[in-house]
């Protein structure tokens, strides 16, 4: 008789420990799922600084309303989100409401995160509380001017434009019969928050459309961010993704480069922290969804390669405006035929960035240079030097005009005054932060 309770006890322990192990496996899987979602949501791009603990915040953003800083989202109780319950966490994420009831600046893309499912919020909560190490680092004071230094007016902003999470989820999940398309829509409109940069914004900075169903302005190209113009991700033939294949989009998100173009500016960080970590199947879903977005601008004639400029350069005829500068500075990598050497050096012929109405990105790449993101699948971080010291404003205007005119690009000319103005708004030069590509 004595042996029974002992056995029962032992059995109890066994069952208990077994259960614990099981729970741990589940928990580990949930945390891993959260880690994946955090990458898909590109949290690190804004909340992590190199050489500081992961997700400890402090990244500063210069917005029209002033300078703001990203917050510490590690589980630190004092400086981070350690005290947030899952419900509070979800509210911040999806509705932009902090634990104390005040409103987050919409630099935090909660209008997009509103689409996150409860399950995904659950996974993210698990990850940010148990998968990330706490870091006791205070968030810097925001240098924001009055009246915007008061947070309450943003409440109205939020009420007006932020969709209620349930409604938002419904919208994304229900519009697609095809499961892959639905998954793509969820990722693009939700966690990946592509629209935060690539959708045009209204007067109070709200995105004009938050989903494909809100109209064709969704992802039709955004306003300048840090000197870069986010292009349209819709199907415009010249200035959108009209000529990118599904594989082109997947390659771009995975490696920052494809046969059509290369990443620069803020997108590089989105790829490094975010999209490169996504599965092939999720990337294909996103690509498929993007390829289904009808053009916003229905008037664009198809781009057709025009060999006139190429033929002239091959005959050493450099009489066109900017042609000699192109030969002297650009052709080494981008070729006299403008086709570049993709995916290593991008084509300029037919490149949406080149043909955009606003030449800011093109001018800024010439002035500041660019470094390709180093990703797991493509570790070579090719670097274009800056040409600001080799070319003056007039020369930059001339060479950019040549690039915008040649090979069928047929985009408008750029003046020295435009270039001078852009020089003042120039993003930091390549590697100016000391982050040197060592490839």
């Amino acid at each position, binding site marked *: 008789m004595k042996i029974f309770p002992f056995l029962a006890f032992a059995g109890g322990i066994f069952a208990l420990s077994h259960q614990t192990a099981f729970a741990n496996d589940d928990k580990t899987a949930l945390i891993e799922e959260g880690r994946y979602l955090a990458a898909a949501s590109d949290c690190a791009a804004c909340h992590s600084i190199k050489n500081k603990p992961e997700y400890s915040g402090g990244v500063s953003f210069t917005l029209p309303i002033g300078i703001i800083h990203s917050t510490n989202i590690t589980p630190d109780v004092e400086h981070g989100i350690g005290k947030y319950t899952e419900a509070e966490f979800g509210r911040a994420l999806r509705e932009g409401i902090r634990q104390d009831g005040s409103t987050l600046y919409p630099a935090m893309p909660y209008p997009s995160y509103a689409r996150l499912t409860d399950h995904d919020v659950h996974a993210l909560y698990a990850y940010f509380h148990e998968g990330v190490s706490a870091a006791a680092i205070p968030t810097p004071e925001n240098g924001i001017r009055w009246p915007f230094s008061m947070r309450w007016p943003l409440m109205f902003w939020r009420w007006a434009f932020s969709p209620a999470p349930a409604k938002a989820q419904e919208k994304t999940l229900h519009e697609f019969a095809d499961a892959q398309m639905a998954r793509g829509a969820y990722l693009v409109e939700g966690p990946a928050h592509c629209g935060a940069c690539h959708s045009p914004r209204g007067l109070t900075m709200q995105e004009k459309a938050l989903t494909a169903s809100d109209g064709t302005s969704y992802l039709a190209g955004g306003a300048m961010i840090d000197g870069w113009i986010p292009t349209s991700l819709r199907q415009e033939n010249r200035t959108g993704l009209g000529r990118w294949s599904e594989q082109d989009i997947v390659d771009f998100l995975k490696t920052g480069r494809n046969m059509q173009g290369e990443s620069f500016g803020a997108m590089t960080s989105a790829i490094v922290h975010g999209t490169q970590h996504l599965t092939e199947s999720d990337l294909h879903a996103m690509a498929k969804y993007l390829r289904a977005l009808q053009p916003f601008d229905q008037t664009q004639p198809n781009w057709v390669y025009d060999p006139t400029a190429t033929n002239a*350069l091959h005959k050493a005829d450099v009489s066109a405006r900017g042609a000699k500068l192109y*030969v*002297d500075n650009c052709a*080494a990598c981008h070729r*006299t035929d403008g086709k570049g050497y993709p995916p290593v050096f991008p084509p300029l012929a037919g490149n949406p960035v080149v043909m955009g109405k606003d030449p800011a990105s093109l001018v800024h790449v010439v002035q500041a240079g660019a470094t390709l993101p180093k990703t797991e699948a493509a570790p070579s971080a090719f670097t274009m*030097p800056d040409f600001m010291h*080799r070319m003056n404003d007039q020369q930059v205007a001339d060479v950019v005009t040549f690039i915008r005119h040649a090979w069928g690009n047929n985009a408008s000319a750029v003046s020295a005054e435009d270039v001078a103005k852009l020089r003042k708004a120039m993003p930091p030069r390549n590697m100016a932060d000391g982050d*040197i590509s060592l490839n």
Partner: protein
Amino acid sequence: MPPKEPTLTRPLRRSFVKGLLGSTSFWMVSGHSHWAEALAQEAQKPYQPTFFTPEEYRFVEAATERLFPQDQHGPGARGLGVAEFIDRQMESPYGHGDNWYMSAPFVQGPANLGYQLPFVPRDLYQKGIAGLEAYTRQQHGKSFADLRAPAQEQILTALEGGSVSLGDIPGRVFFEQLRTNTMEGAFADPLYGGNKGLGGWLMLGFPGARADFMDWVNQDGEAYPFGPISISGETA
């Protein structure tokens, strides 16, 4: 201390290029944003040597012009700024022999075992010029720069042939140093103070820093069609 090339922790191109020119003040003081304009502005001022004394500089100008004279083929050392180039180089790490092995003992041996003197380029010039000026005064009663071309050529021929000793320095060693630096000054990128107006490159048909021949790999014996461009973007 010789100026060092910027390291990887300071990658900004301005400080990088500053190191190249060999002038420590140029880029910092002038604050130029555009290389070619800055260099052109610099070129307008008459060059003031910083390493050589005015007498030494006169010698370098005269001797390099004899080695690389202005003629039917094009500009000579004087027109190309070779003396300026050499003066700037003497202030660079090279002038200080920064990557030469300079540990004692210094034992002289057969010529084919290479340079064995305890002198870096700055020493070679100072001692070499002093020695050659003394030799010239002894032979001709005046300074090298004041001699007529044939007499200068005669002295340089003797120097090259090894029949002149310049105190601590074999004449031939000094001659080779001078000849090498002259050719460098005639044909290096203008960033270093020589090859003014890309005159050296124009003579040879060398296209400079464009560095792209994808369309011109094999033209079946035709000349390459474009003129030269320098690192700063100067063209000719």
